[in-house]
């Protein structure tokens, strides 16, 4: 226990030194004792503060830390999340779907974290929860606002009738679902008509980028197919959507033909599918593809950065395709310079799907105009 003398708490160290040097003998003794014990106390306080900081940091890491994944098994039921089967750091299990959900969400986390400096879905280390084996014969995957959910396809049908494999089979589907989470925390694009189709397109864009990032493929090497491997061999198709050539992913006697347009002139007006969110997403999907290929190299680097910042900072819940075109163009200008090749590629990408981007006409007109105005030389 420390004996607290009033001097400990009141007299500042520099004054104690003066007393120790110039005071009476008893004053000197007391001051010296105080200096010593105060120094010890300060050291202890410092240690305590350091401990507190470390402790707080550990707590922070546990709750909002880095990559943290959990995979649950719904065991063919509908209750979510189901039974925990693999958590962060656990070794792979025998169930391939569990491992795919775990690895795919990990690669998605890595792309967002390493390339876009985003710590998980909410930018604050949110844990990535997935449930596999949802229901029986559930040929779908979705994001329920809190977690990813994957069905096993139509495993309940005879092999000769099966059209879908398990939905964790394609890593871009995992990236797609997680990006719905990112959109939920950022632009909050309403899931209806054009904002909904943009929401879907953002999920396809970053889903495809997760796959390209994993395979380390350049824009020209990538297949730009969403859901490759999801169809069984009974289906005439390469995947669910093609960003390179929307409308060509499948053409099958049972499933029909891929309905995606690649151009505004073919925009589909429908009330089905929340106003065609999975149909008209072909248009912004193709704009991204055209942009990425024109820029060249790894699509996640420049084109991906432009789209990511647009999703994070520019789009709102009611944004439409034209807004996305304008905003990506402006973001490209800010990142790479007005008139840069990258900005030109964005403009050409949108022009390729029938959306024109004009440079801003209001006073402002770019850096040069602003500089001239500042110098008193501009209008």
């Amino acid at each position, binding site marked *: 226990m420390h004996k607290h003398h009033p001097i400990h708490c009141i007299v500042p160290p520099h004054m104690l030194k003066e007393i120790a040097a110039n005071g009476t003998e008893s004053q000197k003794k007391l001051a010296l004792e105080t200096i010593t014990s105060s120094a010890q106390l300060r050291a202890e306080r410092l240690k305590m503060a350091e401990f507190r900081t470390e402790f707080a940091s550990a707590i922070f890491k546990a709750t909002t830390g880095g990559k943290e994944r959990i995979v649950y098994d719904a065991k063919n039921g509908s209750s979510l999340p189901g039974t925990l089967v693999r958590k962060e750091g656990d070794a792979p299990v025998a169930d391939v779907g569990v491992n795919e959900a775990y690895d795919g969400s990990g690669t998605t986390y890595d792309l967002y974290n390493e390339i876009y400096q985003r710590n998980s879905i909410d930018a604050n280390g949110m844990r990535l929860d997935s449930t596999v084996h949802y229901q029986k014969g559930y040929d779908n995957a979705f994001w*329920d606002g809190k977690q990813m959910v994957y069905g096993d396809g*139509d495993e309940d049908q005879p092999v000769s009738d099966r059209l879908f494999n398990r939905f964790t089979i394609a890593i871009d589907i995992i990236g797609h679902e997680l990006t719905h989470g990112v959109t939920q925390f950022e632009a909050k694009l309403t899931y209806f008509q054009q904002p909904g189709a943009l929401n879907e397109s953002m999920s396809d864009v970053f889903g495809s980028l997760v796959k390209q990032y994993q395979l380390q493929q350049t824009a020209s090497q990538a297949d730009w197919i969403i*859901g490759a491997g999801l169809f069984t061999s009974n289906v005439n198709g390469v995947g*669910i959507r093609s960003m390179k050539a929307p409308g060509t992913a499948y053409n099958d006697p049972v499933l029909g033909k891929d309905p995606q347009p690649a151009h505004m002139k073919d925009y589909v007006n429908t009330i089905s599918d929340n106003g065609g969110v999975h149909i008209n997403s072909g248009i912004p999907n193709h704009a991204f593809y055209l942009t990425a290929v024109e820029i060249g190299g790894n699509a996640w680097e420049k084109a991906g950065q432009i789209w990511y910042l647009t999703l994070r900072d520019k789009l709102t819940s009611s944004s439409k395709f034209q807004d996305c075109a304008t905003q990506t163009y402006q973001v490209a200008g800010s990142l790479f310079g007005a008139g840069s090749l990258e900005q030109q590629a964005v403009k050409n990408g949108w022009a390729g799907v029938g959306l024109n981007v004009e440079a801003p006409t209001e006073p402002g007109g770019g850096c040069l105009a602003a500089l001239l105005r500042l110098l008193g030389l501009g209008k």
Partner: protein
Amino acid sequence: MDVERIKFERTGGFAGMRIAADFELSDLPEEQAHTLAELLDDLDFAELPEQLLSDSSMSDQFSYTITVETEKWKHTIVTGDSSAPEKMQELLQMLNQIARKQARKH
């Protein structure tokens, strides 16, 4: 209730593919027809609200429209994966299966 006819439509989902079924209960195998009638009875289908939707995210979820006709009444409801009550999941799975079978026949 003596269910005569059921119309079912599933839209949306990750793949955005529509499937639908329109059938008389008498067209189904007896056991399946019986199970379906029981499920509808358990749900008190005629009394369900027309919109069984929640505020949760709809991202890639299926949207279901079900119409049931009897001699006395006809009732349509719309619901989704997360918003459908637990009790309805078995009905949805059965209707999905019927619709997929019909799609494969055509």
